[in-house]
């Protein structure tokens, strides 16, 4: 291939890349967000937080939500929790919230001391099998869902994830305005649909 032809091919590739991914150096990497057409509605739930107040996912419509299934006995979860506290601090004024759903069998007896020890700054609820089943049966902890402003699951991370990858996803979702109206449905999704397995 001649140098001129090679240059033309490279330039075409670069321009194509710009069209698809954008050329701005400040653009956030798309990371592992699902394409718009592949996102399913995040099932709604109603769980009590540590203050006894009911938390419904549907109350967060219009916000970007990081939904974290975790447990106090889970070492990898304890690595991520300080990241999530950091995200909550940095992005809460941009329409972002972290919701933690503990899957501890011992419920608040185990979870409340942990919240106090760590100083968790976001809402934590105690989940149950019904909640887990709605999300395809949560087996591995942590499992983290990124939910877009339209209440749809935009990304799923099973196991200890990369902090930068999650944050890139959050920033990308925060830049996208809500597009639809309507309520999050209460259907349960198989794991394959939510992408948890």
């Amino acid at each position, binding site marked *: 291939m001649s140098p001129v032809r090679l240059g033309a091919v490279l330039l075409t590739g670069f321009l194509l890349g710009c069209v698809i991914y954008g050329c701005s150096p400040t653009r956030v990497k798309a990371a592992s967000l699902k394409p718009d057409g592949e996102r399913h509605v995040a099932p709604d739930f109603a769980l009590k937080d540590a203050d006894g107040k009911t938390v419904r996912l549907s109350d967060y419509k219009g916000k970007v939500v990081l939904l974290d299934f975790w*447990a*106090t*006995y*889970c*070492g*990898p*979860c*304890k*690595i991520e929790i300080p990241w999530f506290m950091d995200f909550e601090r940095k992005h809460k004024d941009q329409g972002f919230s972290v919701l933690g759903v503990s*899957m501890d*069998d011992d419920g608040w007896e*185990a979870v409340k001391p*942990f919240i106090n020890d760590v100083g968790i700054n976001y809402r934590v609820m105690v989940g149950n*099998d019904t909640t*887990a*089943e709605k999300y*395809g*049966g*949560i*087996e*591995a*902890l*942590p499992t983290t869902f990124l939910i877009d402003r339209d209440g749809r699951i935009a990304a799923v991370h*099973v*196991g*200890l994830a990369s902090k930068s990858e999650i944050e890139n996803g959050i920033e990308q979702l925060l830049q996208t305005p809500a597009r639809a109206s309507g309520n999050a449905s209460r259907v*349960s*999704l*198989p*794991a*394959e649909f939510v992408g948890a*397995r």
Partner: protein
Amino acid sequence: MLAACLCLPSLWAQGNQYLTAEAPQKLVAKRGTSAEVKIAVSIQPGFHVNSNTPSDAYLIPLKLTWTPGGLESGEVVFPKPQMEKYEFSDKPLSVFTGEFSLTAKFKVPAGAEQGPGIMLGKLRYQACNNNSCFPPKTVEVRLSYQVQ
């Protein structure tokens, strides 16, 4: 049909076991004596379970309990735990991996009924791999015995 499909992943998840415990050999003992059995335990490759003495108060220990029966259950002897370092932990954790044995001790009451019987045990464990943890699970241990 749809409901059955939606339930499948969860049922599958509950069916996963990361630890198996072999049924111990039949215990034969005389009334008024002590006896012990070895229980062979195997952990799936790539996984670990917390030892009976975990490194952190939040961790769930490996624990064997027996339903009251014809024998009096006593001490359970665990092997020396391994101290392993994982990606998600700053310090080594007290765990079991691979294959090992537990020893369960019993006393045969002086007034125990002669003949065969079964003791049912529950081995509770909590498993993790290098980047995920899994809810605590229980496997049943079935001990056949003969009191002479």
